[in-house]
């Protein structure tokens, strides 16, 4: 191949390189940030429970079982979309689901649960979002899996789809449970 042919092949090479970069870059979700919390102990908190404000719930109640910790709010539209999935995980698969009600008015949150059903074992009421900051919450809904030792094993940002629940979350919960 002489120099001239090489020269005319340059645009093709650039095209292929650019195509490869875009193919990788555009399939990444820019909203998915790797959480530094995965693998670490769940951030400590103690907050009033949503339905029974005199009861305090928090990190202590997270230990002992593999739980799904879901951050939600009544003003959050994608939380509504996710709600039936959480309900099914709790009802049909016996997954303990607990919640952090994030920057929400108590009355609004209770109405939301009355209307859509309540998959949560308990809900911590994080009115000012301070606990949310400790958990690195930046977009509701967010879902964490916390193991028996109270360590965060998984984080998902955005609504959980049926497919993700079946293909990702349930197998992972089963695996963590089998660790003993």
């Amino acid at each position, binding site marked *: 191949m002489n120099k001239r042919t090489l020269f005319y092949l340059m645009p093709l090479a650039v095209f292929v390189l650019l195509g490869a970069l875009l193919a990788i870059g555009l399939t990444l979700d820019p909203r998915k940030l*790797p*959480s530094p919390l995965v693998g670490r102990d769940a951030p400590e908190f103690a907050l009033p429970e949503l339905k029974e404000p005199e009861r305090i719930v928090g990190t202590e109640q997270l230990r002992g079982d593999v739980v799904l910790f879901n951050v939600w709010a009544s003003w959050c539209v994608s939380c509504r979309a996710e709600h039936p999935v959480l309900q099914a995980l709790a009802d049909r698969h016996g997954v303990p689901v607990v919640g952090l009600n994030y*920057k929400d008015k108590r009355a609004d949150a209770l109405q939301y649960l009355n209307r859509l059903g309540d998959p949560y074992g308990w809900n911590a009421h994080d009115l000012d*979002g*301070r606990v949310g*900051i400790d958990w*690195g919450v930046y977009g509701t809904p967010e879902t964490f899996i916390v193991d028996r030792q109270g360590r965060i094993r998984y984080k998902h940002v955005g609504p959980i789809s049926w497919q993700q629940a079946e293909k990702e979350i349930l197998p992972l919960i089963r695996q963590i449970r089998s660790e003993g």
Partner: protein
Amino acid sequence: MKRVLYVASLWLLGGWLAFAGASFSPVEFDDPVLQQRYQALLHELRCTVCMNQSLADSGAGLASDLRREVYNQVSAGASEREVIDFMVSRYGEFVLYRPPLRPATYLLWGAPFTLLLIGMIVLYRSARSSRAAPAEAADPTASDRARRLLQQGDDR
């Protein structure tokens, strides 16, 4: 005309700067050192919901929560390093507008300089070949003809 354009652009720039100044968060410190630390931190930290805005620029709810958090920590005497560590341990290194130099970020930091180097090599080579080209192209009969034509022009 040039002068008018110059004055107009200065005026536009001034207006823009005034606007940028007005969008700062309203928090005031008594101590100018703390005030400066607070402002510097707001520009160093990214708002995680809005991606391409710093905490200082963003109007998002989370950004204002984080501004309040930074304010509380700075007024409690936290150093810049401590506040940054606090944010990184919760939101990851993504919150930093100036990513640290580590193996994972070598490409990020190195790419602009590599591209600059490639550009300089290409520029150097093309400049050299274009200077060499006219000498190559000159052929004796053509230059003789050119000289003749020029001389005819002088006679006229």
